[in-house]
């Protein structure tokens, strides 16, 4: 049985296993062109027999390979050639040139194939707009468990971005062409061999002396590409592909443009980006502001977060330590505020974070260079989010305990937009100086001190995960125990949920099944899942489910609770792969 199975997802980038003709290969991978055919790991794709295009052997083809894209003529050529793709073929080519509609049509017409080849892929090189249109279109129209192979496209500097964009297999074309032209490939450049002053590469070909023969140079060039593919594969497994990409795109402007265009295609990226995970999120460039994790946090906060019942609000600076409460500065702030106010932390790239959500992913997981200088884009982002948080109700006092110019600017804009006035308590002093802290305390004097931090934090995280109202339902008749942030919710001595600080989420038990709204209920066929629910067992799944989300699984024979490994759309359309890791199950 030939198939592709996705293992881990990190945005559109993913790892997987391709199995064909009894051999298997791990993706992302670098395909090798050999005389015998294309080598995908251990899998040999041949020109005939398991042919992937209809030109056979040394005879004239029955059909030409109409792969040189001219979208205007492709509609005709494609229709005639698709007829030639016979069932014994393991892979088929998605034509369509720049025409996204044609590409979509071709990809969905070829849904039986575990491997789809991107026709005219080389035309996407250094064409950020085309790349960020075509690749998502093909991925969206194809089945989620079809591997995408883009031949003739990879260059060392573009590999991480291509994989992030959603391509599973790349090839060594560049290594070959460069070697034939006496060109030496490095991570960020290609140089004529004769102009190379010294080689710092530790690959066997370079260590053996100069890679001057075609074969030697080919070995080095391929190793350079292969390294980038492996780094990307490891980064997906670690949940840090985006970090790798943001680091690598600096070497070519077109790569920066391509990532921006991809981010503009937000739904495509967001749907595939895990909601809760343990990896650190590094916000080292302005692209971080447009990350799906960041925009999704703001979106969920806006739609799902219900602030605690407080008459005062206080605006605080972020801390280097995460979650914020673990830092020295915040423990001082906490003493001064004494549970009397809605606490909002200004930060980049998250914008503005209420205290209750300080433990969720990625708020507890990000790191950002802190210089005290914030860009206009960052200030605008903080302003939007702060305004959303404060706009819901009127506060008797808004205390701005911030000093950095950028923070102050954001607060000033919010004051103007909302027509409110803030009391500044740290303008000239350091926020943690005794004087400032005394000022802060003074600002909140007389307000109620009855906010139950543990309960409110738990309620807000549950809302953040499952939607408004889930937290209240969870806490109904229950109590919150444990030591922050390792809390658990119990009712009648039974645990409903446990906080998992490493993932920034709550892990629910079956006792909490009523807390799940239909948006997070996966319907399965008539069986009792053991460790996991596989995609083919899923009858239907709501579209809003993201990898990492907590879900309730319901079928005629069992009810389970667990963590989604793929999006709802992928669960519904995939033939393979783990859909949900089951934590608790109950037979009916």
């Amino acid at each position, binding site marked *: 049985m030939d198939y592709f199975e996705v293992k881990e997802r990190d945005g559109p980038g993913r790892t997987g296993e391709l199995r064909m003709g009894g051999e298997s290969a791990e993706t992302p991978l670098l395909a090798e*062109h050999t*005389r015998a*055919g*294309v080598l995908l790991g251990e899998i040999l794709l041949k*020109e005939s027999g398991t042919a992937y*295009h209809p*030109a056979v052997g*040394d*005879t*004239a*083809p*029955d*059909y*030409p*390979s*109409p*792969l*040189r*894209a*001219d979208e*205007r*003529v492709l*509609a*005709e*050529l494609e229709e*005639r050639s698709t007829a030639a793709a016979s069932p014994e073929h393991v892979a088929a*080519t998605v034509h369509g040139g720049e025409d996204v509609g044609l590409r979509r049509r071709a990809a969905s017409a070829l849904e039986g194939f575990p491997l789809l080849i991107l*026709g*005219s*892929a*080389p*035309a996407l*090189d*250094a064409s950020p707009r085309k790349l960020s249109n075509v690749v998502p279109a093909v991925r969206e129209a194809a089945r989620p468990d079809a591997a995408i192979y883009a*031949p*003739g*496209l990879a*260059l060392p500097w573009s590999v991480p971005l291509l994989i992030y964009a959603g391509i599973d297999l790349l*090839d060594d*074309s*560049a290594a*070959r*062409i*460069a*070697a*034939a*032209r006496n*060109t030496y490939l490095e991570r960020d450049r*290609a140089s004529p061999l004769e102009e190379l002053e010294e080689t710092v590469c530790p690959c066997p070909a370079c260590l053996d002396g100069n890679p001057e023969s*075609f074969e030697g140079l080919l070995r080095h060039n391929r190793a350079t590409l292969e390294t980038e593919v492996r780094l990307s594969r490891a980064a997906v497994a670690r949940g840090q592909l985006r970090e790798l990409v943001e680091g690598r795109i600096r070497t070519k402007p077109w790569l920066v443009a391509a990532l921006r265009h991809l981010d503009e295609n937000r739904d495509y990226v967001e749907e595939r980006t895990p909601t809760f995970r343990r990896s650190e999120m590094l916000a080292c460039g302005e692209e971080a502001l447009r990350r799906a994790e960041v925009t999704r946090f703001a979106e969920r906060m806006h739609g799902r977060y219900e602030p605690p019942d407080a008459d005062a609000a206080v605006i605080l600076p972020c801390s280097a330590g995460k979650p914020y409460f673990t830092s020295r500065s915040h423990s001082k702030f906490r003493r001064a505020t004494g549970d009397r106010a809605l606490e909002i932390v200004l930060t980049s790239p998250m914008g503005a974070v209420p205290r209750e959500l300080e433990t969720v992913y990625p708020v507890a997981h990000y790191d950002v260079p802190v210089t005290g200088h914030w860009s206009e884009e960052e200030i605008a982002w903080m302003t939007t989010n702060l305004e959303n948080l404060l706009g819901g109700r009127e506060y008797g006092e808004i205390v701005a305990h911030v000093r950095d110019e950028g923070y102050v600017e954001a607060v000033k804009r919010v004051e103007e937009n909302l027509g409110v006035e803030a009391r500044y308590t740290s303008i000239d002093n350091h926020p943690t100086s005794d004087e400032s802290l005394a000022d802060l305390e003074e600002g909140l004097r007389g307000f109620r001190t009855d906010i139950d931090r543990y309960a409110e934090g738990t309620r807000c995280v549950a809302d953040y995960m499952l939607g408004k109202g889930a937290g209240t339902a969870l806490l109904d008749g229950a109590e919150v125990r444990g030591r922050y942030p390792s809390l658990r919710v119990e009712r009648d001595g039974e645990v409903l949920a446990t906080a998992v600080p490493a993932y920034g989420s709550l892990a629910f038990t079956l006792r909490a099944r009523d807390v799940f709204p239909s948006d997070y209920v996966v319907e399965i066929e008539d069986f009792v899942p053991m460790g996991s629910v596989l995609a083919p067992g899923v009858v239907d799944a709501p579209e809003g489910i993201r990898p990492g989300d907590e879900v309730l699984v319901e079928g005629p024979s069992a009810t389970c609770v667990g963590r989604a490994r793929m999006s709802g759309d992928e669960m519904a359309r995939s033939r393979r792969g783990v859909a949900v890791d089951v934590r608790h199950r109950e037979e009916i």
Partner: protein
Amino acid sequence: MTVAELVRELREKRRERERPKDPEEPSAHWPGTDRVGHDVMTSYTVILRTRGCRLASGSGCTVCGYPFEGTGGVGAREVRRQLETALADAPDESLYLKLFTSGSLLDEWELPVDAQRAVVEALRSDGRVARLSIETLPGFVTEETLSRIDGPYELEVATGLETSSDAVRQLCLNKALTFEDYAGAVEAARGFGADVKTYVLLKPPFLPEPTALRDAVRSGIDAFDAGSESVSLNLCNVQRGTLVEHLHRRGEYRPPWLWTAHEAVRRIKRYAGDRLVISDPVASGKKRGPRNCGECDDSAARALERFSLEQEPSILDGADCSCKTEWEQRLLLEEHTHHPNPLTSIDG
């Protein structure tokens, strides 16, 4: 949009910019040297201006830029004038006259019967022509049409098969013709006692280089099997107003490598034995023509020309260049990637 529609659209766009042609002036004429059987003859090529190819009046081939050579009102008088002008410059010796139009000389829609007869009369009275080659689509080759142009010379019918694959001819070339039509024409010509020369096109649009190579070799072999006496391998170049030009502009067509032509000629010749395999690399070394790396284009093209005269495969072995490695790699990669110009940004 279909290929046929796109070809027509591109052609109409181009036609608007064409100046009207003088019906009394031939399109072109030039002397040369050609292999005929075991001999080498002085040849003279004349391209008569006619109404133009009948196929092109509908849609036309994806590679052919000749439709703009056509003009209205060419009858017997005009053809006589054209021949007079052309032959005035011909060498004063026994000639192998290659008399072409931009279409089919035997097509009476293109060149009326009395004009065709006028041609024969003119050649008869000129007296220098020992061998006449005329170009035509296979569909116009019958005993009747051939007898119209028969005269005191050996007759050769040159016909553009382009490829023996009907699918490639239809999809890539948009040329309305089947292999069966061609085989029938060969039979008719041979029955009449004429020789047949078959044109095979190396690298129609949409075919990757290695597929194009196989297609050309296969087609050459099929042409010989059908009874053709010689095969002429035409190397596709980028002509104005064609679909090929449109693709070329977008980086989606590269004319064939001269190394591919060498390889095709070598393989066809291996099958042909004593029969002639020739190739005249028009526009070689130019951006719009067949080429290698730029350094070796001249020597590779010269080798093809010499081979065409001497029919000696070792002539091709003499040409070499370091770019052969890149050509080999591209053949390997295009076999798998189906794209003409992978990784153009590699150097940037």
